[in-house]
């Protein structure tokens, strides 16, 4: 091929770096942690709303929609990659399992919410560490220096 370089080849020559780094950011654990981190941040908002409305008559507590966990579980069990799949997004829905024992029909129990918040916070910290460690490993590979 002594004529012009095909467009595809030129691009491959000019931009080799993204192709090398991409597999690190597409590891299953990293992508899964990112999705779960999004879910944990959303759950924090739901809990904030539940506690703010602990005295609103007729309010039903919000939580992550169970469909997200189900979809994620079945996708992981089937060995499918969840990487970069935007159709799998956490959503909120009213918690249909929570029963109201109050005359005003509100289904928020403040102790339950505070415990859920603590649990969510531990989960968030753990996931943030996983994501962080992935990035640190990449940094280590580039610079040859660990730590900060």
């Amino acid at each position, binding site marked *: 091929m002594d004529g012009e370089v095909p467009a595809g080849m030129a691009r491959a020559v000019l931009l080799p770096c993204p192709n090398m780094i991409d597999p690190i950011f597409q590891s299953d654990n990293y992508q899964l942690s990112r999705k779960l981190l999004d879910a*944990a*941040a*959303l759950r*924090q*908002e*739901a*809990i*904030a*709303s539940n*506690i*703010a*409305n*602990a*005295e*609103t008559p007729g*309010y039903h507590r*919000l939580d*992550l*929609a169970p469909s997200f966990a189900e979809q994620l579980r079945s996708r992981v069990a089937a060995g499918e990659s969840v990487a970069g799949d935007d159709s799998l*997004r*956490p*959503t*909120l*829905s*009213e918690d249909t399992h929570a029963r109201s024992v109050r005359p005003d029909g509100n289904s928020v129990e*403040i102790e339950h*919410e*505070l415990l859920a*918040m*603590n649990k969510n*916070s531990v989960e*968030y*910290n753990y996931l*943030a560490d996983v*994501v*962080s460690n992935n*990035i*640190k490993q990449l*940094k280590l590979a580039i610079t040859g220096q660990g730590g*900060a």
Partner: protein
Amino acid sequence: MNIISGIDITAGALSAQRMRLDIVAQNIANAETTRTEAGGPYQRQVVSFETELVKQAGGQSLQTVKVSGIAPDKTPGQQVYNPQHPDAGPDGMVQMPNVNLAYEMVDLITASRAYEANLSVAKNARNLAMKTLEIGK
């Protein structure tokens, strides 16, 4: 999206509960006030809340709480026989404010517990945000 998740919801609830605490304080302070600018004894004030839509997240609308108004409690206060009182009527009865200390104390504790719960949400949201900023460090 806010970096500190849910802080706008919590902020509304905090200021609403704070207003409720202020009104409880005013009611207790005026539990014996028999003469007001409007004439007559002090009337207990009641705070009412309303919900306010803040935003949409994850397919659901999230609502916060805000004060919709402060209205007087119209129930009549106690009549006490005290002829020495400067505001006593010709029959020696004094119209006292309709403040019931037991109600106010219950309201005070409910409001301050609700305030604390919202405050702990705010603290937790802050910790999460700080953790987020440490990713990759």
